[in-house]
């Protein structure tokens, strides 16, 4: 009973590879290297089916993958007809190819604003290939400027603003410390102000660099900015609201509300929103009736001192003495009273 079964298996093992020998790159390029190869789509668009051999071999996948590793639906020649009506449908049809190898990054994208847009039916929402390329995939972020250029394919206006900011201008000089798009917005689980809690977490986001003592020392910047923000009314409110899990009904200023978002400039830049001369306008974004005195209510991230905020410092100092003096004195009287009561007995 067992012997015939083994015989069948052996026969199958011998014939199987011969039947399904996967085609190599050369097999595919025999047709697809023809530059004139294209199809017309029902949308009226044409889709070139030609592949640049050198571009593919030069890509990160050039020495690792063959065509059918991704084009798993191609099983024979001629290929089965596919009901694709437009160029975009072509890309969408291959959307899930990457996840066979890049599963972790694929699952991250499910949390992105891009995926949220796609699931609302927006077919222009970016797929893997829109950022990484398809046949010419290169190492992302080399050079770093490539990242902002990639995002700018859709977010053109943002790049124009960012490029003029303190971060954007430094990026152009090859600075490896300044944030580019993905440092704040992340790369696969891309988020933005539409995401829940994005605004609430802005201070931590900025503090991931501006709280880094070593990094800030390179640029002569203070890391007290996060601490002084949190100890002030705005920062404390943001922090308490976020630990309670609500954003509150009124907006409370976070880093970006005063310093700007993509247009952040140096604090001594004449255009800076936080420059003394411009500050009252910035305050008026929320405090519409702010007078010229009002910006001084904010100590510009400085800890109170005799030279910076003498009144605040004096009040702080006075209570540092008054509270222990008063409470100490009262406790002493209580102890004396009790002692006398004990002595009297």
């Amino acid at each position, binding site marked *: 009973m067992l012997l015939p079964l083994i015989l069948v298996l052996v026969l199958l093992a011998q014939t199987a590879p011969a039947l399904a020998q996967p085609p190599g790159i050369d097999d595919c390029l025999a047709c697809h290297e023809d530059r004139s190869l294209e199809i017309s789509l029902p949308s009226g668009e044409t889709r070139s089916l030609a592949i640049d051999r050198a571009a593919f071999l030069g890509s990160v996948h050039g020495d690792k993958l063959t065509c059918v590793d991704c084009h798993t639906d191609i099983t024979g020649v001629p290929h089965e007809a596919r009901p694709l009506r437009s160029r975009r449908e072509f890309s969408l049809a291959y959307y899930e190819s990457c996840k066979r190898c890049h599963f972790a990054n694929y699952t991250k994208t499910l949390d992105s604003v891009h995926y949220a847009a796609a699931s609302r039916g927006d077919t222009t929402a970016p797929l893997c290939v829109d950022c990484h390329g398809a046949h010419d995939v290169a190492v992302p972020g080399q050079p770093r400027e490539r990242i902002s250029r990639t995002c700018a394919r859709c977010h053109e206006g943002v790049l124009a603003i960012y490029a003029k900011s303190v971060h954007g201008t430094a990026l152009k000089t090859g600075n490896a410390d300044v944030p580019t798009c993905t440092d704040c917005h992340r790369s696969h689980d891309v988020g933005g102000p539409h995401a829940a809690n994005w605004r609430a977490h802005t201070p931590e986001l900025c503090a991931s660099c501006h709280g880094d003592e070593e990094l800030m020392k390179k640029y002569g910047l203070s890391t007290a900015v996060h601490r002084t923000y*949190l100890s*002030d*009314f705005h920062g*404390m*409110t943001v*922090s*308490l*609201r976020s*630990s*309670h899990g*609500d954003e*509150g*009904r*009124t907006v409370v200023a976070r880093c970006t509300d005063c310093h700007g978002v993509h247009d952040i400039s140096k604090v001594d830049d004449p255009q800076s929103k936080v420059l003394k001369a411009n500050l009252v306008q910035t305050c008026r974004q929320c*405090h519409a*009736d*702010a*007078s010229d*005195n*009002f*910006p*001084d*209510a*904010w*100590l510009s991230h400085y800890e*109170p001192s005799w030279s910076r*905020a003498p*009144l*605040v410092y*004096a*009040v*702080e100092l006075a*209570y540092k003495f*008054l*509270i222990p003096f*008063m*409470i100490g004195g*009262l*406790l002493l*009287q*209580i102890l*004396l*009273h*009790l*002692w*006398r*009561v004990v*002595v009297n007995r």
Partner: protein
Amino acid sequence: MSQYFVRFSPKQRIEHVTVMIVFIVLSVTGLPQKFFEYEISRWVLDALGGVDRARWWHRAAGLTFAGFAIFHFSGLIWSVLDGSSRLPLVPTRKDFADAILQLRYYLGLTEQQARFDRYDYRQKFEYWGLVLGSVVVIATGIILMWPTIATTWLPGQFVPAAKVAHSNEGLLAFLVVVTWHIYNAHFNPDVFPFDTTIFTGRISRERMHHEHPLELERLEHAADSASTRHGDGAA
């Protein structure tokens, strides 16, 4: 067997209960904001429904307190104008002498104790502490509640200075209450476990004799010369 005197009028008792409730609300909603970085503060604020709701209660209680302060002082001014108040809480030279004498007694330097009238120096101290503290927290609270309006007249730095003063004054008041006031009203061996006078208005003749002998003498002298017992005293 024992006689009672009415020490506090219904108005004074209501004032005390109101200030007590308002003080508790202000402390519970205010201190977690001062010490916001502590886990317990976050827990309290969460239990209150978040910092925004806690602030609403803090401001409501603060405005109530400010209203009561105005009520209290306008009543006081009125009673001075119509001559019905002897202003028993105004500090006198005797209070300083009493304080020194009492401290000498506690230290065992003398066996003689100070003899007090209606309010002793400690009670006056606490009252004026509350008054001064109220002026600070109400004034700074108003600045913090309407910072843009306040800075149309005041320099901007008054706002962070007001925040420091407000929270520290609140802390000071809280600490005075939990040490000094709780001791005098509860743990003081003379009244342990609970001095109920401010709630019932009544104080025994025995305690009057012990704690307010000068007032007792005056009351009984007045009663004798009118040859009737002090109107609301007999019980």
